[in-house]
């Protein structure tokens, strides 16, 4: 038994002496009028500090392109983090090789066996793989890393000018996605007291905020990926990264902020 356990329960039993009814029966002793009413324990707030990650070491431009890979916890994607920007100001999402004609890097990545989608954003490339692919990501990540490294060393453009020319204006993206939220997404998640709002659009990168029942919900990631992503990309196929800007531990009613009375 842990040492803290016996200490805690010894204290609790001591504190309870004289106030607990006898076991197995009705307390027939006189019930003296309490001098003060018991004060219920206040609900306490749970603060979640951001988890700090050791950033990929950035260095002056050199032939040695350093790339690290991290597989998402649910094994759904692999994020390749490069020591220099790959695509600045915009992001590019490619759902298939057929639709990757505006990016030679994406076309190269789709040559790797198993790659299903590719998202290029800032310093990162995020790959998903076909559901039939199992096992660890090491080989796929290694091949993708080699392809990205070779592309950057050759100094090739990541996307064509046509890709950038074909992007809608930020205002147009904002207006369309707001309509999608109002007419499709929010009515369907209202049953869970959830609400999703557009935070901002930068280039073609979309930042959203999840509120109400969505905030802090363990299923919010699934909602985001399976619901919001599909609806947004159907409405505006040119949008790139869709990022959840929600602090899932803050606000007035996050899903897991308040613990039951007595919990700390």
């Amino acid at each position, binding site marked *: *038994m*842990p*040492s*803290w*356990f016996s*200490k*805690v329960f010894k204290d609790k039993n001591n504190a309870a002496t004289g106030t607990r009814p006898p076991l197995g029966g009705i307390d027939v002793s006189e019930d003296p009028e309490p001098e003060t009413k018991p004060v219920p324990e*206040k*609900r*306490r*707030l*749970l*603060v*979640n*500090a*951001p*988890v*700090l*990650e050791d950033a990929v070491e950035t260095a002056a431009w050199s032939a040695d392109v*350093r*790339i*690290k*890979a*991290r*597989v*998402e*916890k649910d094994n759904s994607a692999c994020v*390749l*983090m490069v020591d220099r920007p790959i695509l600045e100001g915009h992001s590019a999402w490619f759902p298939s090789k057929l639709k990757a004609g505006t990016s030679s890097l994406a076309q190269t990545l789709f040559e790797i066996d198993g790659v299903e989608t590719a998202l290029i954003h800032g310093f990162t490339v995020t790959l998903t793989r076909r559901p039939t692919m199992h096992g660890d990501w*090491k080989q796929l*990540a*290694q091949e*993708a*890393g*080699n392809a990205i490294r070779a592309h950057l060393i050759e100094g090739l453009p990541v996307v064509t000018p046509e890709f950038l020319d074909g992007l809608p204006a930020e205002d147009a993206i904002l207006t369309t996605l707001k309509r999608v939220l109002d007419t499709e997404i929010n009515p369907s998640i209202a049953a869970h007291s959830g609400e999703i709002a557009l935070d901002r659009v930068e280039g073609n990168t979309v930042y959203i905020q999840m509120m109400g029942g969505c905030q802090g919900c363990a299923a919010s990631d699934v909602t985001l990926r399976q619901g919001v992503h599909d609806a947004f990309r159907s409405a505006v196929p040119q949008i790139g990264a869709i990022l959840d800007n929600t602090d899932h*531990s803050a606000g007035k009613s996050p899903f897991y902020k308040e*613990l039951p009375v*007595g*919990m*700390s």
Partner: protein
Amino acid sequence: MPKLNTFDVVIKTGANGPAALPKWAINGFVVEFEQSKGGNGPGETFEGTANPGSFPHSLLIRGPESGQWDIEETKVTYYPNGESPYTVRLGAARLDEESDLNIWHERPQAVFDV
């Protein structure tokens, strides 16, 4: 979640910090650190070791009894039963008499060079 034998915590305090040493809480029970050094006054660093020896569904640093506690950074090293230890670093947080810091985090996903 694995059984957690022991954890070490290092807490760097910023501009505001309480005079009393911090306590930790497991599954709702508030406990003092079994070993500690340093402090959590302004600019100080506190180091503590605790031995939960149990399966936490919540593991917290208790907020101060009064005033504010500005934590600059928290480093927690976990020693799960039968597994290798791991460390998680947490960024800035502000605690008061009605709040606690969540320090229960799973092992971070491994990052590898490609």
